[in-house]
């Protein structure tokens, strides 16, 4: 079953094309990593798929629902952990999670139950009553993802979820993400190539708004004739077609 299907998805601004005719499909339960250097179009793609930005041309179906004609339905079944920490600063960790649960239609009782579950699964027990603004970067990042998951989305977009985290916090988040694999369809953007290799079922590489290659890390290395994924990524992203 296909969870995300884009059809010539395009976003152009006055002087530049941010995403150009993106055609991509992601299967249900798959973890798909979208890679590219800065300005490649990854975040714009996620913003379009999460109905934050309207495409200039084309469309995308999220579990059969169009982001253009039925964005409200799409919003009900997806969630996003944005690149920036998106929390309500004066609310506690628990209150932030309860707010998100209720905004997605849960009543108070079921919200509390869900919050208790997610606090436990994200290891947030010790900071549950703390104001979000005073949390360390690692805890904030963890809360940022937990707030996206509390609505039990069928499709989850993680936009550079581990940026700025130390190696321990990053590894912990990896294990959380791995645990979700298979249940939730995940689209992940990251600048950490080892993160994509470790977590993703398939990887797509965007260059100047276009999807250049899609495949497993191994397939992309074979295709470019490189022995490391980093070399394969550089070869594809260098825009010279040297690997072909």
């Amino acid at each position, binding site marked *: 079953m296909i969870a995300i299907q884009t059809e010539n998805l395009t976003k152009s601004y006055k002087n530049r094309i941010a995403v150009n005719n993106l055609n991509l499909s992601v299967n249900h339960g798959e973890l798909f990593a979208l890679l590219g250097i800065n300005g490649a179009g990854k975040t714009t793609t996620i913003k379009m798929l999460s109905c*934050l930005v309207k495409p200039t041309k084309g469309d995308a179906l999220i579990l059969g629902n169009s982001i253009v004609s039925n964005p409200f339905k799409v919003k009900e079944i997806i969630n996003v952990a944005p690149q920036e920490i998106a929390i309500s600063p004066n609310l506690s960790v628990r209150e932030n999670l309860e707010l*998100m649960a209720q905004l997605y239609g849960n009543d108070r009782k079921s919200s509390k139950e869900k919050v208790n579950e997610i606090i436990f699964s994200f290891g947030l027990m010790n900071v549950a009553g703390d104001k979000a603004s005073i949390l360390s970067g690692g805890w904030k990042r963890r809360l940022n993802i937990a707030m996206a998951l509390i609505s039990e989305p069928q499709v989850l977009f993680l936009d550079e979820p581990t940026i700025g985290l130390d190696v321990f916090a990053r590894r912990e988040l990896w294990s959380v993400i791995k645990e979700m694999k298979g249940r939730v369809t995940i689209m992940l953007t990251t600048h950490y190539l080892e993160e994509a290799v470790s977590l993703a079922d398939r990887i797509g590489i965007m260059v100047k708004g276009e999807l250049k290659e899609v495949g497993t890390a191994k397939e992309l290395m074979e295709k470019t004739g490189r022995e490391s994924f980093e070399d394969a990524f550089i070869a594809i992203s260098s825009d010279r077609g040297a690997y072909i």
Partner: protein
Amino acid sequence: MMKTIAFATRNSKELVRDKLSLIFGIGFPVILLLLLTAIQSNVPVELFVIDQLAPGIAVFGLSFISLFSGLLIAKDRTSSFILRLFISPLTSSNFIFGYTFPLLPMAILQIIVCFAVSFVLGLTVSINVLLAIIVLIPAAILFIGIGLLFGSLFTDKQVGSVCGALLTNLTAWLSGTWFDLDLVGGLFKKIAELLPFVHAVEAGRAAISGDYSAVLPHLWWVIGYAVVVMYIAIIVFTKKMSSNNN
């Protein structure tokens, strides 16, 4: 409805937990009330008589509600948290009511605190004060609308300047609270009478003095402004929301 309540609850908590703004917003009008009453007790002429002063300070205090609402919206707009809200299945009406609902009880509380302190300073306890509180509710809605409008248009720093400095001063000078507008007269008085602030104060004063027939002529001005400002604020807020999608 549940989504609106959840969002409104969040906004109440954000407002109430910003202690400094809260203390300043409620405390500053009270300090002014005490100060001006102290001045009155030491001058031979009637400058700041409490039954005239109390509705004026109550209206002046409401300008801080604009500051609160403007700051909350502007801070949300310029923070990443708004991304999460825009991604969620919240509608424009969820947003507007969610921002407006928590401010109304705060505004009413502010008016009540102002009159409660005025009782201590000699204001006669009567049913007319209750009427004055009710009469000032349209003014509260007007100031909430101004905050919603400015919060939709400006950054939090700009809201601080526009609402914190400009609006509070406009409210103070053009409401006839500090001095009788007849003393200045001319263009100043005409401008003041075209704006809603003096009418809000006069409606409150008429209610307190029991001159009920004088309430409505002033109140219509305030209600008119409140409706127009709220309407413009909703249009601007909704447009700003959709422009984020382009």
